[in-house]
């Protein structure tokens, strides 16, 4: 699920061995993960674990999350916490609904982006210019945006054919592309159920079949973000505002300007995420975002405030989400997968000397394995919780390696060195 090679420009941090992982290592990790997946698939018979349908569904679910995570990344790298992502996404869904049903999906995307920018600017004015606490401003936006979207939808959609007070008329979906030939070939191999080969084919087929242009755009934006923030002087200055704004100021960086740009970009990405969601579901509906902005924020933290990491996080959320919605026997197989993953974590932790953590991971991992072998299925009440359990576990075990921008969430006033 992870988009390989996206982790451009990993920062080196002094607390760790300053070694940069090469693309080769990432490839090996990906192959290893797929091997484990194949083994679990073969053992449990849950073909949905690696089927092309699951991969497609996971990608579709991951895109709005990845956009929200990217939005969070831009703001937090410049030192501004943006908990208002959810609200900005709501604005994006409305914008996509309004322009989308009249002028087509791409007009919807542009208008959603524009409304997201409005939300971002609001947050920037409050937090940067007036120094309002970031959380308070974010919560205010989360309260304001759904109300505004509802008000506007009553105004514009109630009379539109096929619309209602809380929903827009239909939006056409964006075009989808398939890699001709390759997709069919992979489909044939996937059907053979060969160990590993068919699983790889399933994943590749999912990644090359009926891919929405919106998904491709999202991938481009993630790569572009990595390049802009870590490979350009502009990006260096922007990140310096999040690490040490007074130092940046002393070097002549206009911190206010960079924060404004970053938070506005953040709003734009969140709006895009909302627009993608509305366009791919075919309409705007009140309450449609359903907490995706917050999950995006979690994906960003999971990804250690880096583009490659947040793409992995969003992919993981999308994957478990797709699994939970597609079939319960695959979720049951996830138990075994989690168990194995935790045991691997335990071994790695033990080798790096974290004995307590290693023990905890091992115990939980064994428990998951025991649960798998002593049950036939996961109770439906718990299936929906799968993405959150996975996240909690991963965050809990990986948190010691996370490093947020140093000055994130702190108030900054020009000329008042801290």
């Amino acid at each position, binding site marked *: 699920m992870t988009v390989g090679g996206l982790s451009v420009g990993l920062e080196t941090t002094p607390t760790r061995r300053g070694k940069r992982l090469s693309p080769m290592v990432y490839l090996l990790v990906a192959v290893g993960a797929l091997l484990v997946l194949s083994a679990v698939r073969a053992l449990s018979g849950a073909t949905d674990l690696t089927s092309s349908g699951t991969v497609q569904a996971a990608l579709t679910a991951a895109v709005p999350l990845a956009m929200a995570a990217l939005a969070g990344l831009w703001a937090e790298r410049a030192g501004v916490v943006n908990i208002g992502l959810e609200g900005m996404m709501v604005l994006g869904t409305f914008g996509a609904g309004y322009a989308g049903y009249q002028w087509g999906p791409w007009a919807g995307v542009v208008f959603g982006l524009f409304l997201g920018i409005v939300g971002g600017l609001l947050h920037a004015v409050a937090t940067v210019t007036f120094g309002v606490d970031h959380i308070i401003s974010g919560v205010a936006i989360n309260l304001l945006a759904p109300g505004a979207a509802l008000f506007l939808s009553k105004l514009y959609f109630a009379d539109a054919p096929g619309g209602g007070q809380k929903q827009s008329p*239909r939006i056409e979906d964006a075009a989808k592309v398939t890699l001709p030939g390759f997709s069919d070939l992979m489909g044939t191999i996937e059907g053979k159920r060969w160990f590993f080969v068919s699983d790889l084919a399933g994943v590749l087929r999912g990644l090359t079949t009926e891919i929405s242009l919106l998904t491709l755009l999202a991938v481009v934006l993630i790569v572009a973000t990595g390049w802009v923030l870590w490979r350009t002087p502009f990006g260096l200055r922007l990140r310096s505002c999040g690490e040490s704004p007074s130092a940046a100021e002393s070097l002549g960086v206009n911190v206010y300007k960079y924060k404004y740009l970053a938070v506005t970009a953040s709003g734009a990405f969140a709006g895009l995420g909302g627009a993608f969601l509305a366009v791919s579901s075919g*309409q705007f*509906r009140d309450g449609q975002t359903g907490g995706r902005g917050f999950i995006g924020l979690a994906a960003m933290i999971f990804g250690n405030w880096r583009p490659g990491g947040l793409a992995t996080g969003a992919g993981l959320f999308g994957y478990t989400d*797709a699994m939970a919605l*597609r079939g319960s026997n695959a979720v049951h197989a996830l138990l075994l997968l989690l168990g194995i993953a935790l045991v691997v974590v335990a071994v790695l932790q033990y080798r790096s000397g974290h004995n307590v953590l290693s023990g905890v991971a091992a115990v939980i991992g064994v428990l998951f394995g025991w649960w798998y072998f002593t049950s036939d299925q996961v109770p*439906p009440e718990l299936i929906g919780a799968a993405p959150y359990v996975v996240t909690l576990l991963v965050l809990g075990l990986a948190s010691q390696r996370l490093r947020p921008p140093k000055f994130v969430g702190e108030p900054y006033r020009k000329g008042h060195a801290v």
Partner: protein
Amino acid sequence: MALGLTLAACGSKNDSGSGGTTTGGGTSQAAAKLKIGLAYDIGGRGDQSFNDSAARGLDKAKSEFGIDVKELEAAAGETDAQKEDRLRQLAEGGYTTIIAVGFAYETAVEKTAKDFPEVKFAIIDSAGPSADNVANLTFAEQEGSFLVGVAAALKSKTGNVGFIGGVNVPLIQKFEVGFTAGVKAAKADATVQVKYLTQPPDFTGFNDPAKGETAAKGMFDAGADIVYAAAGGSGNGVFKTAKANGKFGIGVDSDQYNLPALADVKDVIITSMIKEVDVAVYDFITSVKDGKFAKGEKVYDLKAGGIDYATSGGKIDDIKSKIDEYKAKITSGEIKVPSTK
């Protein structure tokens, strides 16, 4: 909550008192008029669905009897206390007849009815609150679901069909149980895949087409060729993916084939389970107007005409006679459709 239904015709005629406006005249003439308050479930007027159906019944009563009407809307994610406030507001505003749309008002009606014994309440879809001034208007959804289950079994080429419920609550389980019974009655060896999009208290499953799309795609990938969507607004995603994969879907609550919002996917909707909420609302108002208010549960079933199946589009014309045979057996009592697992 908004159990996915949609009603044609309703999207355009709004304006008649949406969002808490009082229509039907000022205070001078109000004394002589029947004052009816109606509290919507999430979705509200214009949801092309469940709430719109209630609104149609109200509109019909209003135009025929010239009653004084106040409508209030619910918001997503609100608490029981907020729902209670809404009912109190109506009762204190002098509305002597109050209709609560949706089972979510259960607790609120229970409490409010106690404090306003002179006000007559009706709650749709819940047999829960019981008092001398509460009428419970419920539907035998399992019977209609049974009939569309028969249609699905007879129309399926793979012998594999799906059921997608919005939220795993007892009300939606009635749909599932009836559907499964219908499928098995018509084709004993058929497979029924079942999926609920969310678990309570997360009610977003009624309002998330993206989730409906993913779940339906999973069922189609696993061999199903017809999926019954009892999932409110999420059903739109089910029909969309059915169309993209050359499969079929079954609608719910209203004749979804004829809904303008679903016009571009209507050719995959072979039938719909129809629930006449408007009839229940209209009947209730009529009974109050005539001084014949009756407390307790009133079940709108196949026999009473409160439940039916749709034939728009002509996709099931060839098996209509078979479905009608089952329908006759249910109305005569020969077949008893279960409503719980």
